[in-house]
């Protein structure tokens, strides 16, 4: 096992940093298409289940200190545990494909239309690979720098684009019944479900800090919900839900409405910073955790330098060739990726916690602790 060690603050910030991108940049259009005018409700409605999921992460972390979910699933579920562990490892990889495909599509559509997306994908993943190979400590520290900057710039854009927003467009609520709200909430849970990466890296939180990590993750969830709700509501207020839902990157439009006096006509270059810096830490963390989970699953010790390089290359290739059209990709996201995220990240962990409790593992752990003391 690698001997990384991060603090609870770093762990919480990592959780906030890695999942926020989906809510406010990558998947906005999917939420809008599913929920229409009520799409912004998906965040608040996903919150209660999200909190239960976070509690279960902490509970499982306390039961299996220093172990990742891939390590303790077989102990919990026997052979079935291996199957579920495979799903978790595959999902960690899927997050990378999802992120890279959307990021490269956006770059080609908005920033560099002439450059082939695979070239940019290769360069970007090379950079991500560099950070991943440096280790969890380096990822956590990089995130400690990027997250506050991203937040400040995010607040700036939400305030600066206020002139173009009319929040009355959020009303009336529930105009089309509960159906759209339910659909978009399921996708919202998919966003929250990406927090499942905590089940991997929680094992590396410093032992003295583990008690505090639950609160840090809860705050990260609130951050994720805020960054999901704010941009969704903002997009609807600025463009109306129909126009915003037909756009591929509605939140990006906010940047196009802001100018810096006479010097910069468009501030979309700052949007590039937001997107790329946000995806950087996210991809590095998921790549590293994929490599860690892969080694633990197969009980091998492939060197991360080789394993992660192979995985990074595979991400670029798959994101290019696995989805011949954008429609196919969108279908994959809404029918497989986000629902799988909701199941693996929000539904399954509380069930696992319940299984552990039913099998008396919590009492055993408590007993061992008391006995040890």
């Amino acid at each position, binding site marked *: 096992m*690698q001997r990384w060690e991060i603090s609870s603050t770093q762990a919480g910030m990592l959780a906030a940093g890695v999942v926020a991108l989906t809510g406010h940049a990558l998947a906005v259009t999917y939420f809008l298409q599913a929920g229409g005018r009520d799409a912004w409700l998906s965040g608040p409605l996903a919150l209660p289940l999200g909190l239960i999921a976070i509690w279960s992460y902490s509970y499982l972390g306390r039961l299996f200190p220093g172990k990742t979910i891939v390590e303790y699933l077989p102990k919990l579920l026997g052979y079935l545990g291996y199957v579920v562990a495979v799903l978790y490892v595959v999902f960690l990889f899927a997050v990378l494909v999802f992120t890279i495909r959307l990021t490269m599509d956006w770059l080609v559509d908005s920033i560099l239309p002439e450059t082939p997306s695979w070239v940019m994908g290769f360069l970007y993943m090379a950079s991500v690979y560099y950070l991943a190979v440096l280790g969890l400590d380096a990822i956590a*520290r*990089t995130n*400690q720098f990027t997250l506050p900057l991203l937040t400040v710039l995010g607040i700036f854009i939400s305030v600066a684009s206020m002139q173009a927003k009319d929040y009355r467009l959020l009303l009336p609520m529930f105009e089309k019944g509960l159906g759209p709200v339910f659909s978009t909430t399921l996708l919202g849970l998919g966003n929250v479900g990406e927090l499942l990466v905590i089940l991997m890296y929680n094992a590396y939180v410093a032992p003295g800090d583990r008690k505090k990590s639950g609160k840090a993750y809860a705050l990260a969830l609130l951050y994720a919900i805020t960054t999901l709700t704010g941009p969704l509501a903002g997009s609807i207020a600025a463009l109306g839900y129909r126009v915003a839902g037909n756009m591929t990157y509605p939140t990006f439009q906010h940047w196009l409405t802001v100018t810096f006096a006479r*010097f910069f006509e468009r501030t979309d270059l700052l949007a590039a910073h937001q997107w790329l810096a946000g995806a950087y830490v996210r991809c590095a963390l998921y790549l590293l955790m994929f490599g860690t989970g892969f080694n633990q699953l197969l009980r091998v010790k492939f060197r991360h330098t080789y394993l992660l390089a192979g995985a990074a290359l595979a991400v670029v290739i798959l994101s290019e060739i696995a989805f011949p059209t954008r429609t196919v990709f969108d279908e994959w996201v809404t029918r497989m990726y986000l629902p799988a995220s909701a199941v693996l990240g929000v539904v399954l962990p509380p069930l696992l916690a319940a299984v552990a409790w039913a099998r008396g593992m919590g009492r055993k752990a408590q007993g061992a602790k008391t006995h040890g003391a």
Partner: protein
Amino acid sequence: MAHKTPLPGTLQENLRWLKKALGNHRGAIFRDLAMPTPGGGTTQVLVVYFEAQASAQRVEFHLVRTLLERASRGAPLNLDVMLPATIELKTREEALEYLFRGKVLAQVEGDPSLYVVELSDMPHRDIPVPETETGITGPREAFTELLVMNLTQLRRRLPGTALHLESTWIGDQAPVEVVIAYAEGRTTERMLSEVRRRLGKIKVDGLQDSGQIAEALSDRALSLFPTVLITERPDTVIHYLMAGRVGVLMENAPRALIVPAVFLDFFVSVDDFYEWRPYVAFLRFLRFIAFNIAIPLPALYVSVTTYHLQALPTELTTSLLAQREGVPLPAPIEATVMTIIFEILREAGVRLPRSIGPTVSIVGGLVIGDAAIRSGITSPAMVLVVSATAVATFSLPSTTLANAATYYRYGVLALASAFGIFGLLIGYLAVLANLAHMTSLGVPYASPLFPFMGKHLATALGTKKRPPEGPGARPAPSLVQTAENYTEPKE
């Protein structure tokens, strides 16, 4: 030095051995003196030293005249009692080592021991004024090549038992004394052991300057960012020792090393220790901005003018395009060539004598720059960008940090030339990752920024009250002590 040979013993035997051992060494002075005694007899005294390394005047006054006077009175000639700082020698190797270091060897007939007498007078500079770390306020003393003088300067500034000076020797052929300096209770035992271990691992024949051991003290030898602080000022060393760092001083080296050194340390100028705090905080902020201009500005200009003209207002776009009309090189190559020419001018200015250096700057900066624009080889905007980058680089207090900025500038420029703002951001993220990963003797290099350590960040930004603690108060934990919690576990 592993094999030790005992000294021959009697005065005549020692004299024969010394003459044989020093036969080819110019400047060795052997004085075989006959001291008249009251009984009319004489007592032989052997004095050996090197010309100009030991003071002939002091030998005459302190040693020879004292011996003559005592011999004439019939008093016993016990060298170890008569003279201060006298050491009895046991082996030939240590006798030669002391001799070569400017000490005087002496032996009295009948006494089987050869002694070393501290009468050295190695040629050295007086305490100079700092040359590379000049400031408006603060002391005006710098280190010299003489270690003992440098240590005296430290002791004068930090008298008492708080200052610890540990001596060690490095080098096989020509061992050099290296001193580890630290303040009691401010650093950690782990840090001290690590410094001792790294110095102990250095295997060289000899050392000429402390810069040669800086690499051994770095966590990663090939890192572009500096992880060892180098200073010529004793007051700076004391400031850092009180902040929990460890100083390394060396014989023959007019610069001290300070470890661990974190990223923000390289934004500290000498005046920062003495100036008005709000002003210091402002200046450090400016330097940080300058660093963030020094690396990406040419890359940003190239990426915007080549790939993202839509980001600029129409008037500015028109103006820039008009300026570039007729310029033979594309913007990426133009930027690369201009920054390389600037580096050449800078190098020329540094290498030339001081009286000519400024002339090169004027000719290079003004005449060539103006001529290049007029002849259409480059655009005024590019000259402005390169000049602004140069000024930003010069405003960095640390030349090693400025050098790192230069390396990264070329890397980021290459990426931006190929991929516009995307390449620039990739480069920026890679620099950030590198900063996040680096350590200096195990202390996270980007601390106290990330990992975030609020109290230490206030000190690093210059906003915290100086001195860090009030009279009689317990000192707050130093960055080094706090960073113990963040020290990366070794694989």
